[in-house]
């Protein structure tokens, strides 16, 4: 990667207030923003940003980097590459690795791997409970005090279903301003075989159903626990209209709750599993499952009106053979880092539901704030701020080819789809990690 921290001039970029400006980057920060063309002077490197939108670097609250444990599916380095290509400058790496990130040492290991890769800030998420077993609290405080400064805790993939454990976790993280990111799935209502939205289609296909209510009862419980404890809860990958209603209500009550939605839940629907659409394709097996169009519509509305704070990818790479089982036995999850921005652009911007300032809010500012990374990421585009930046071509139209990915995995549900919007450049503290859409 580029080491020289020379100055860099982004020429003619569209800013979030729709004005056009030249942005000079030096010493890892925004040195100057000039709205008079040519007045900002020269630099060692110039990026022609004519027609491009400049965003604060994207922040992903929910990424699976698989290292340690499943380096055949993804590593911190390859996942960082995918993140940079996707326009991200920071990602939160989920704790369900092997071993689990449930100690300070494990968190620092992931943190250090991220810094060594040097493409995005890899911020480890700590497990809420030891071994993700849902019984005893992990060393939350030691992880928080470690070099990795863990602030987000999640047993992602498993729900902290015991209300007593969830209550204690919420109370405990108040010490250091932490947050519990909950994978909301009542295991009594959506057990280990649940693999498909419970509804008419799961009934016909004979697939074990994962009903929306299994998510909604946990969201409802958790917002009440957040109110009771005066703590902060984050609802990971909201997938149903009912959960949206719960979050909307909780926010109206002043409860400290935030929520994220994945790009795939903003577009893909459960009927992709129907036999007339190919049938039982594990590419579309994800947790929580793809839902019907009514839920998708509610999620888009909620993202637009701010009920849902952030888009988070739930990037979940899997080795090919882990998806080549019978549907119920196949691994959950799909790739997401490289396609998140084009997806949001296609679903939310092209349709007029969000402007680019809105995209900056849901993909950078809000996630950075939720994760406690807001001293470095999700900052305003202003002089003196860290130059964590993403340049987007809003007009680019491209068809996704899974073989173009820099991820180690190919479980890409977007293969063959044509999307609008493309990341052209990513800067991490002023250093380009991606230029002309290509990894540096």
């Amino acid at each position, binding site marked *: 990667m580029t080491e020289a921290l020379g100055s860099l001039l982004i020429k003619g970029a569209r800013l979030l207030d729709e004005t056009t400006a030249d942005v000079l980057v030096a010493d890892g920060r925004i040195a100057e923003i000039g709205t008079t063309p040519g007045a900002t002077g020269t630099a060692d490197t110039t990026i022609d940003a004519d027609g491009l939108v400049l965003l604060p670097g994207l922040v992903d609250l929910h990424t699976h980097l698989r290292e340690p444990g499943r380096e055949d599916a993804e590593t911190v380095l390859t996942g960082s590459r995918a993140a940079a290509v996707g326009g991200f400058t920071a990602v939160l790496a989920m704790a369900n690795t092997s071993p689990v990130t449930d100690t300070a040492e494990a968190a620092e290991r992931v943190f250090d791997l991220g810094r060594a890769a040097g493409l995005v800030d890899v911020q480890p998420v700590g497990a809420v409970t030891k071994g993700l077993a849902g019984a005893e609290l992990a060393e939350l405080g030691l992880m928080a005090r470690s070099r990795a400064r863990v602030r987000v805790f999640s047993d992602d993939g498993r729900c902290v279903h015991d209300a007593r454990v969830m209550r204690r976790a919420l109370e405990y993280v108040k010490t250091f301003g932490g947050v519990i990111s909950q994978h909301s799935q009542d295991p009594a209502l959506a057990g280990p075989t649940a693999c498909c939205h419970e509804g008419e289609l799961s009934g016909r296909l004979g*697939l074990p159903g994962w009903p929306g209510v299994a998510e909604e009862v946990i969201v409802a419980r958790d917002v009440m626990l957040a109110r009771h404890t005066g703590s902060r809860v984050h609802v990971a990958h909201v997938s149903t209209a009912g959960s949206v209603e719960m979050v909307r209500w909780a926010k109206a009550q002043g409860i400290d709750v935030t929520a994220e939605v994945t790009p795939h839940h903003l577009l893909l629907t459960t009927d992709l599993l129907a036999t007339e659409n190919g049938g039982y394709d594990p590419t579309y097996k994800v947790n929580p499952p793809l839902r019907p169009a009514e839920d998708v519509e509610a999620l888009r509305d909620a993202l637009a009106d701010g009920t849902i704070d952030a888009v988070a990818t739930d990037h979940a790479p899997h080795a090919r053979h882990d998806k080549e089982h*019978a*549907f119920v036995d196949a691994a959950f999850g799909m790739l997401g880092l490289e396609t998140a921005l084009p997806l949001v652009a296609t679903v939310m911007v092209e349709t007029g539901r969000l402007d680019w300032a809105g995209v900056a809010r849901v993909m950078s500012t809000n996630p950075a704030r939720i994760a406690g990374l807001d001293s470095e990421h999700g900052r305003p585009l202003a002089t003196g701020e860290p130059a964590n930046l993403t340049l987007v071509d809003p007009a680019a139209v491209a068809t996704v080819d899974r073989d173009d990915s820099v991820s180690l995995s190919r479980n890409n549900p977007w293969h063959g789809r044509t999307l609008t919007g493309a990341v052209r450049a990513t800067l991490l503290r002023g250093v380009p990690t991606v230029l002309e859409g290509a990894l540096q």
Partner: protein
Amino acid sequence: MTRHLLSIDDVDAAAMAEIFDTAAEMHDVQRRAVKKLPALRGRTVINLFFEDSTRTRSSFEIAGKWLSADVINLSAKGSSASKGESLRDTVLTVTAMGVDGLVVRHGASGAAHQISQWVDVPVINAGDGMHEHPTQALLDTYTLTRRLGSLEGKHVAIVGDLTHSRVFRSNVKALLELGASVTAVAPPTLMPAGIDDWAKAAGFATSYELDPVLPSADAVMMLRVQRERMSGGYFPTAREYTVGYGLTRERLGLLGADTPILHPGPMNRGLEISADAADSVDRSVVLDQVSAGVAVRMSVLYHLLAGEETP
């Protein structure tokens, strides 16, 4: 005929009529002293069973052998995931031996469907999880057709654990395709999710009560109810299930004197079906179903494999 038989969706009424015609001829063969036909001589059919089965596997085995195919039974019990091998690898390994057709039974819904996308030989679904069991529905409707003539306008009640039943899912499609009307009867806990929407779109009826359905039924299909469902909270006790949904001696009085009673087996006598119903000489067609099973599977194997060029 389609290349595979994965679901009843693969056969329309015309294709079913064709299968039934051939099955009737095969049925006659069953009564001969020498039962072998040369139709599939030199062909190899693998019964690839990922789930235990005695009757379906034997039925396919006999059907293949009477058509002179070499039939090999492969038991691949236990999910391939637990053995560290993907389903795709298992299936490609088996087909690489040089087979002409796969008969697949798997505990997971959709398995046969997925397998058909990985191999280049015809795949016959011998039951996939809770999804479908198309040859069972074909043998059931064949049995009914022989008994009742055309099923157009006939009313068939399907009773029992609909949620977990691939027999139900295939039969409801087959019966509707053949013009019958269907009422699916079960307590709400044993009805598939969203069945009301499905029933509305497909054109069948549902009922939580059995008694009002029986008097107008031209046939009754009883489904097996597994006792372990009680621990899942699907119903409180066997006694309560029988009172609500069992084909008891008392309920036989609501049926016509020769209304056929079907059961795919194995029967839980005393739970979903009483001995009086199972052994009713004029009504029970349970053993006819078994014998029709061989004929129908011969017919299916013949239609899917006899026309295939040997690779």
